[in-house]
């Protein structure tokens, strides 16, 4: 439909405002992480850095526990990602292609599980983990992260699976391929963007997780970034330079991942949702 110039102008303004709302806070934080401390806390804030220093990053990486938190986060997130992807592909395929009693009910139950308040299972999960001797063990975090990522992952998976023509699978079946072979050789390559979006979702979900990490992990040696950074906030007399550097380093991996597969991720997000 054609738009008049007034509508175009309104649209342009709206878009700029939207971009500012989303991006400006990040710009401020990232650009400020390389400012000298006196510029950071100056009462005349600057949009573009007037000074340049890497001291905050040096302090963060050299004199704090941050590098260890970073490593822990990477390990936990990658493990959660791998398990979530494997589970989501297998069960997504089962939900979509196999018929078994109670399938629809289970599918809905899984949707519900996604929106399930984590806080209400926090106390009993803590009890379970302590009974299993997994308190202060990163593996406990992986288990919890997978639990909360899998429902949404299956949801996303389903839309991608729906796009795979069933005829190809039937042809392969006629040629004598087993279910697993079909999944591995035919379906998987076709749903690669779906697998990518599930992977990024699972990674980001555990990269961000705070609640369970704060309770299940106790020693500094096993803390992940969200809990570790929160600890640094309390520990030092609010050192904004350090905080901003921490925020910047924590955001960068997510942005990097997103730059590669963000498009598929958003497609997966919406494709799964509107059903």
């Amino acid at each position, binding site marked *: *439909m054609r*738009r008049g110039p007034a509508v175009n102008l309104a*649209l*342009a303004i709206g*878009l700029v405002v*939207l971009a500012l*709302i*989303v991006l400006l*806070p*990040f710009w*401020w*934080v990232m650009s*400020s992480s390389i400012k000298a401390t006196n510029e*950071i806390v*100056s*009462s005349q*804030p600057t949009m573009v850095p007037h000074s340049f220093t890497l001291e905050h990053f040096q302090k963060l990486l050299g004199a704090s526990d941050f590098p260890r938190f970073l490593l822990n986060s990477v390990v936990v997130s990658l493990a959660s990602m791998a398990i979530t992807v494997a589970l989501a592909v*297998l*069960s997504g395929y089962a939900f979509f292609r196999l018929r078994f009693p109670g399938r629809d009910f*289970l599918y809905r139950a899984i949707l*519900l599980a*996604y*929106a*399930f*308040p*984590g*806080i*209400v*299972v926090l*106390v*009993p*999960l*803590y*009890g379970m983990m*302590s009974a299993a001797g997994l308190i202060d063990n990163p593996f406990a975090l992986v288990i919890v992260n*997978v*639990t909360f990522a*899998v429902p949404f992952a*299956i949801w996303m998976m389903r839309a991608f699976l729906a796009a795979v023509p069933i005829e190809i699978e039937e042809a392969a079946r006629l040629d004598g391929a087993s279910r697993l072979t079909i999944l591995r050789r035919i379906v998987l390559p076709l749903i690669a963007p779906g697998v990518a979006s599930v992977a990024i979702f699972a990674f980001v979900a555990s990269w*961000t997780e*705070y*609640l369970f990490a704060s309770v299940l992990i106790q020693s500094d040696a096993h803390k992940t970034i*969200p809990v570790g*950074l*929160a600890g640094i906030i309390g520990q030092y007399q609010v050192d904004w330079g350090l*905080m901003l550097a*921490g*925020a910047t380093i*924590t*955001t960068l991996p*997510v*942005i990097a991942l*997103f730059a590669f597969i963000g498009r598929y*991720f*958003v497609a997966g*997000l*919406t*494709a799964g*949702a*509107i059903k």
Partner: protein
Amino acid sequence: MLIWLGVTLLYPLVSSAALSLENVRIIGSAGRFVGLANYLSVLSSAAFWLALERSVVWVAGNAVAQTVLAMASALILEQAFPGVRVARTWIVLTWIVPTIVIVIVWRWLLSTSGGMINPFLIELGVIRRPMGFFSSSVSAMTTLILINSWRWFPFVAVMLLAGLQRIPGELYEAAAIDGASRFARFRRITLPLLQPTLFVLLVIGTLLSFNVFDIVWLLTGGGPADATTTLPILIYRTAFKGYRLSEAAAMSVIATLLLMGLAILAVRTLAPREEVR
């Protein structure tokens, strides 16, 4: 997979119910069966009802702010113009960065030393001198709701956008030929056809916002003077700071029942017709 979810979600729920009937204080210590005593003490405590009330305010505030922001963004992003694909992807940036980053970003932006917001508001003439956003109870809650909405509205917007794109363009063209104004088209075509999407988002959004813990905990810790202590905060504090696990479990059970009840009620009574069929 199902076994996994069964063990990690269903079993805790059941054991939570069991725990709530005992009097365990610290994890690992043995409890004695006390029947409904925990429920009685929870239901008769003012703190519980106040937290529940704050949770209602929190969920409602978030729902309104996010819906308005998201609807406006979705309508903008639906239009075709250069760069819109990039914008549709990157808008969810606020949703994918860790909460701790959001917390650092806003604590700093809102701080009275070096923060950008105070000078900006003074410039605009909204306030005279720098204000502490988390120091009074009303402004703390409002600020938290706005920050959380800032974080979540892109997610809602992307969902709404997908809903918008499923509305056939011919409908708008036909209406335009009949002389319907932009607003009339929005009200008579967009809104009714978007209803199923809006409904699903409302139900899921309510559950998700109720659940929000970290952003509140890390920004205000539930203060000032409990003004932002929503139910999740209260449960967390009762269990891990006050060491009254069974009481926290009782609260968890009550919250679960309440949310489930609300969700079922919503689906039964409010679900748009098409979905029922």
